[in-house]
């Protein structure tokens, strides 16, 4: 890795009326990555975000964004950070452009700078044609796009997006996800919350899973899958014309193979490293036709379920 950490929390804790909502959270977000914050409803994601922005004071612990303490120097943090709230609202009587202009003004942008920037972000989210329509006539999806524009208009170094694709149609989701993924190339780090795991899997580099205010797991997406589901191992699936006990034995003897299971014409092989070449050779040498072979990829779905199963088992 070796990347610069731009957002860091240390034992961040928040209590509401005696209940701990966020419990000793330690997060690390590297520069220019897309970081996914996952967890069921009420896991403390939004509260964590509010503390990152200095909108809510933590009970203990601290959060630092670009080296600034969120509680003590919220203005410096907010100057660099754009936030898309989960329940976002606009001034309904104003047009999209006026709403954005107000935000640009609040960020001390000059008029020319603001107009240029507004034009650019409206273009980016595909609202150029609707720019001068009052927001009250906007559909849910259009408001969501305007919300993204609203975050981008201040040219943030860090964008915190709470459910950025809520209420969008599939095409809209794709556009917004592409836009978010493209942000990292423009020197913007993204932290996003989402319930839709495939979205997170598509664009996030790292994730953290929260449950009841506690960090369940944090790390790069690729590593997490193997860690979670196969104890750090690879799972290789081989389909052959027929499966013989001899074949199972031969493959079991390859160095690095931990376990071989036969199921119909399929072989499920667990290995320490990517041994596809050695396995295919063994299969072909044994005189059996090799139909297909693939390394099992872990979907975030599996990871998520796995962690929450554990969570459930612990409870019982």
């Amino acid at each position, binding site marked *: 890795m070796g990347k610069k950490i731009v957002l860091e929390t240390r034992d961040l804790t928040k209590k*509401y009326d005696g209940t701990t*909502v966020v419990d000793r959270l330690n997060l690390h977000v590297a520069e220019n990555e897309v970081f996914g914050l996952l967890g069921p409803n009420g896991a*403390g*994601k*939004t*509260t964590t975000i*509010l503390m990152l*922005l200095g*909108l*809510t*004071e933590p009970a203990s612990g601290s959060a630092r964004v670009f080296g600034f303490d969120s509680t003590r120097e919220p*203005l*410096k943090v*907010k*100057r660099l*950070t*754009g*936030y898309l*709230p989960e*329940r*976002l*609202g*606009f*001034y*309904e*009587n104003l047009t999209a452009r006026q709403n954005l202009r*107000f*935000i640009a*003004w*609040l*960020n*001390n942008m000059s008029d020319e700078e603001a107009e240029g920037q507004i034009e650019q972000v409206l273009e980016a989210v595909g609202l150029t044609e609707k720019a001068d329509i009052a927001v009250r006539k906007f559909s849910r999806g259009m408001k969501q796009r305007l919300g993204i524009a*609203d975050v981008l208009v*201040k040219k943030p170094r860090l964008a915190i997006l709470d459910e950025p694709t809520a209420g969008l149609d599939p095409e809209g989701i794709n556009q917004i996800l592409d836009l978010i993924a493209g942000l990292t190339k423009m020197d913007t780090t993204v932290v996003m919350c989402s319930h839709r795991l495939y979205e997170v899997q598509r664009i996030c580099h790292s994730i953290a899973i929260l449950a009841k205010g506690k960090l369940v797991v944090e790390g790069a997406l690729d590593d997490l899958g193997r860690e979670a589901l196969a104890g750090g191992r690879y799972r290789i699936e081989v389909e052959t014309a027929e499966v013989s006990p001899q074949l199972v034995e031969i493959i079991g003897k390859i160095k690095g193979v931990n376990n071989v299971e036969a199921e119909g014409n399929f072989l499920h092989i667990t290995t320490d490293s990517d041994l596809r070449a050695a396995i295919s050779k063994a299969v072909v040498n044994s005189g059996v036709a090799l139909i297909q072979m693939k390394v099992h990829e872990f979907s975030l779905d599996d990871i998520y379920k796995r962690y929450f199963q554990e969570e459930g088992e612990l409870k019982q």
Partner: protein
Amino acid sequence: MITIIRKELADYFTSIRCFILFILVLLASAVALYAAQQGIRDASIGSGFIFMGLFTTGGDIPSLVTFIGIFVPVIGIALGFDAINREYSSGTMSRILSQPIFRDSVINGKFLAGMITLAIMIFAAMLIVSGYGLRMIGVAPGAEEIIRLFLYFVSIVVFGAFWIGLAILFSVLFRSLAISLLCPLAIWILLGNPVFNPYVSFIVPAIADSIGTYLMLLRISPYWLFAEATTALLDPLFRGLGILTVSDTTGMLLRPLSLEQSLLLVWPQLTTLIGLAVICFAVSYVVFMRQEIRAT
């Protein structure tokens, strides 16, 4: 903060609410002018301050001063009752607070924008009455009259500030728009309205056991304070706000008080009004600053 004031003002001036209030104020000025036209000839304006008679003279129809006493609280409440809680309910508050601004500039900006709007409305009404009145009676105001009228204007703004502050206080305390509108209205009906005022006509006479406590209790009512200040400012013949005994009045010359003397008379009233406005605003400021943005 300038940005917030700018936006709030733009909102106010394009809103239907303000349009209606403006029309109310204009109608009131027109009616008051008519009243003055009817009454000013017969009015016993012994003081020689004829121009001010335009504002204070009424007959069967109330004068502009009476109208202003009724409308200013209503305008104040209408401008402030949803200042903060509407931002919460429409979801714009978290978006604004995540911008690099100080939190207090939101509430300061809204309060100031409300006061500016109110001041513009009242100033317009007074100018209209002055202008048409000048044509009507053909008597130009003297320097002292202008100063007195200006001071009257200042006291209106302070009085209005109290009601805006009160309305904003409830908009900070309650999330529901209906409650934050009803609470200041209830206070207005109880303490602040000149037409039927249960506080002045029933409660105070029932409690008070002496003239002193009677006046002291009356002066809790912001309307009463404002009315006393207005009377002393606009009627130079007016002598005292307390109770004058026969021995006080014997030998008293019926000559107008000088500006300084009138000012001296209303100074406590004005200060109390300012104090009330400051308290209202300060409480809402503190509550607002301590309010947490919570994940819902």
